[in-house]
């Protein structure tokens, strides 16, 4: 049964709507905006519709919508505003924020039922279509990649090599181009173009199909004459593509031509076949050339042993394999670690991610769109996180910058006596009571300034727990101060412990990386966490 969340501060209103809908739907209820956000956060994948009242204490309907929009929930989850509000300002604002429909008081059962039903079916159809489209697109994309890979493999097969060369060159090309796109907009690169170049990079050596076996697989040094024949593969490959009687004008064929012909040109004009120099060599060919050289150096060949990553890098930078575009050398340096990981087979750039991204871009130009699959993944990670948290204890938190939403673990909320979900934590009274206004601001600024390449930081805090008077012994008032603060002022009865707050800033996956928030955990300073160096955190869950 589909679930509907009813958010209204009046119990009677909720009851009335619930009675009108409970026959067809499972009903969840929230009495105010904060409760709504916390229910949504935990059930975002299984709620089909939100009925939202406008005027509520604490956090009104508009504020709830704002958080939902910033969290990217409104893409998949429709909201119907319920209101007796006549003022068109409010109605406009609500539509602006992405409300799908309005239901006015007085409630008319038939209208309420029909409107809910229509909105839910509209959204579920849209969701299904988006999924279908992405899957089909991926299928077709997969087929075309498969064909190219088979063809490239046939060429390489004659080369008595493993078939990894083509895949490596593609991967390195993609890594270098992504760096280049970040570094400069000089080459007019975008994700589509990079995908095309990467795909067709597989065909860079297609001309080798015409090189005789004994030259192709000669273990020793080639004679001048043999080398000349070997070198002809780039011209031959491009000629083969130019001679196609059909598809000649397809972007893919044009790109394959570019790469096949010019991937042995060099920046200083000393390459072949045309002796092009500088940016007269198309950037696609320049990049594949560098990727090709890096892979040739780091792989074993019939005529040589494999060099290490570091040696290969040094040889390229010193110009031992010809001159390359200095910008590409920059990219190589920046992406060196990523290249090394791919070389060692530890990771491959995720093609499926790009396809999905593309499909979603097409459907929604909304960067925060999360498909069902992603949301389920997230849900799973959250469940995992909660489970481990339950076993290991500790207080962890997660802050999302865009929606200004702070979520703390159940344990932390209970221990510190704060709510699990806090919107706009900087102005939250409970947190100000514990940390002080200044400290909160300082922490926020500090998190924001953490760089993507060094996103982890830690603080030491005194946590002073004073037993609340006239209450059960398990109840404490907490205050947190810097360890460096001299003369910590606390009553003799108070316990105070030094804790470490270990935090990691999070960034967008897409380049350029932007700060999206921070995750962290509060652990006793003496615990083993304290001595871990370079703590590595899982991006999604914050599990240590």
């Amino acid at each position, binding site marked *: 049964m589909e679930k509907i969340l009813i958010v209204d501060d*009046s*119990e009677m209103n909720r009851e009335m709507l619930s*009675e*009108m809908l409970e026959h067809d739907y499972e009903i969840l209820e929230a009495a105010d905006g904060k409760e709504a956000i916390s229910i949504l956060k935990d059930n975002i994948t299984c709620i089909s519709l939100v009925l939202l009242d406008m005027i509520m*204490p604490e956090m009104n309907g508009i504020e709830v919508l704002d958080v939902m929009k910033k969290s990217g929930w409104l893409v998949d989850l429709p909201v119907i505003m319920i209101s*007796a509000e006549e003022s068109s300002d409010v109605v406009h604002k609500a539509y602006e924020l992405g409300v799908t429909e309005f239901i006015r008081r*007085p409630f008319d059962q038939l209208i309420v039922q029909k409107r809910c039903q229509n909105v839910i079916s509209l959204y579920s159809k849209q969701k299904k279509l988006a999924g279908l489209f992405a899957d089909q697109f991926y299928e077709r994309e997969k087929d075309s990649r498969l064909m190219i890979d088979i063809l490239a493999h046939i060429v390489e097969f004659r080369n008595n090599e493993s078939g990894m060369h083509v895949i490596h060159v593609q991967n390195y090309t993609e890594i270098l181009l992504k760096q280049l796109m970040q570094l400069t907009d000089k080459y007019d690169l975008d994700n589509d173009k990079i995908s095309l170049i990467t795909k067709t990079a597989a065909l860079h050596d297609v001309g080798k199909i015409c090189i005789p076996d004994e030259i192709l697989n000669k273990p020793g040094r080639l004679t001048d004459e043999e080398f000349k024949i070997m070198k002809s593969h780039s011209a031959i490959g491009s000629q083969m593509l130019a001679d196609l009687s059909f598809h000649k004008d397809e972007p893919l064929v044009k790109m394959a031509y570019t790469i096949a012909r010019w991937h042995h040109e060099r920046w200083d004009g000393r390459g072949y076949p045309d002796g092009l120099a500088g940016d007269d060599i198309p950037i696609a060919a320049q990049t594949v050339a560098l990727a090709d050289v890096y892979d040739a150096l780091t792989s074993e060949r019939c005529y040589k042993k494999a060099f290490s990553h570091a040696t290969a890098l040094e040889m390229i930078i010193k110009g031992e394999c010809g001159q390359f575009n200095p910008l590409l050398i920059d990219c190589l340096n920046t992406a060196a670690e990523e290249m090394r990981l791919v070389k060692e087979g530890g990771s491959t750039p995720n093609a499926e991610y790009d396809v999905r991204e593309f499909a979603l871009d097409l459907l929604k130009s909304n960067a925060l769109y999360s498909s069902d699959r992603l949301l389920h993944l997230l849900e799973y990670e959250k469940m995992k996180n909660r489970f481990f948290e339950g076993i290991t204890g500790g207080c962890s938190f997660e802050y999302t910058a865009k929606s200004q939403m702070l979520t703390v673990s159940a344990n932390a909320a209970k221990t510190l006596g704060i709510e699990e979900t806090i919107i706009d934590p900087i102005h939250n009274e409970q947190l100000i009571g514990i940390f002080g206004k200044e400290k909160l601001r300082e922490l926020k600024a500090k998190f924001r300034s953490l760089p993507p390449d060094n996103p982890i930081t830690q603080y030491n805090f005194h946590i002073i727990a004073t037993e609340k008077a006239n209450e059960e012994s398990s109840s404490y008032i907490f205050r947190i101060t810097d360890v460096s603060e001299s003369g910590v002022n606390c009553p003799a009865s108070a316990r105070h412990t030094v804790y470490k707050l270990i935090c990691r800033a999070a960034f967008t996956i897409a380049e350029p990386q932007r700060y999206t928030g921070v995750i962290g955990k509060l652990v006793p300073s003496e615990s083993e966490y304290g001595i871990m160096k370079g703590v590595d955190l899982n991006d999604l869950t914050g599990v240590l």
Partner: protein
Amino acid sequence: MTLRECYDSIGADFDGAVKRMCGKESMLAKFAKKFPADPTYQGLVSAFESGDIPSAFRMAHTLKGLCLNLGLDKLQKSSSELTEALRNTESPTPNAAELYEIVKRDYEATINAINSADV
């Protein structure tokens, strides 16, 4: 007194309310009976008397909504007027106190009638 008679006596729209509930008199009866126990009115009284205008505005607004749903037209009209008088919570209109008294009067009449209806 039947619920219909009760509605007629306080200027409420019985037929309209029942129609909106797909003709189910029992549903209207159920919610009308709950109305006297609903905390919204008490909330309005304590907010208004303590000068907490933002809360008083919200409560008057909620009360108006409940009356709309239950077809309590007369109380809906007075609570609606009070809502508008309080909408600018910084400076309510001068007649707010007067309108508040009317809401009190209509509310008393309404719950007296509902409590005496046999449902």
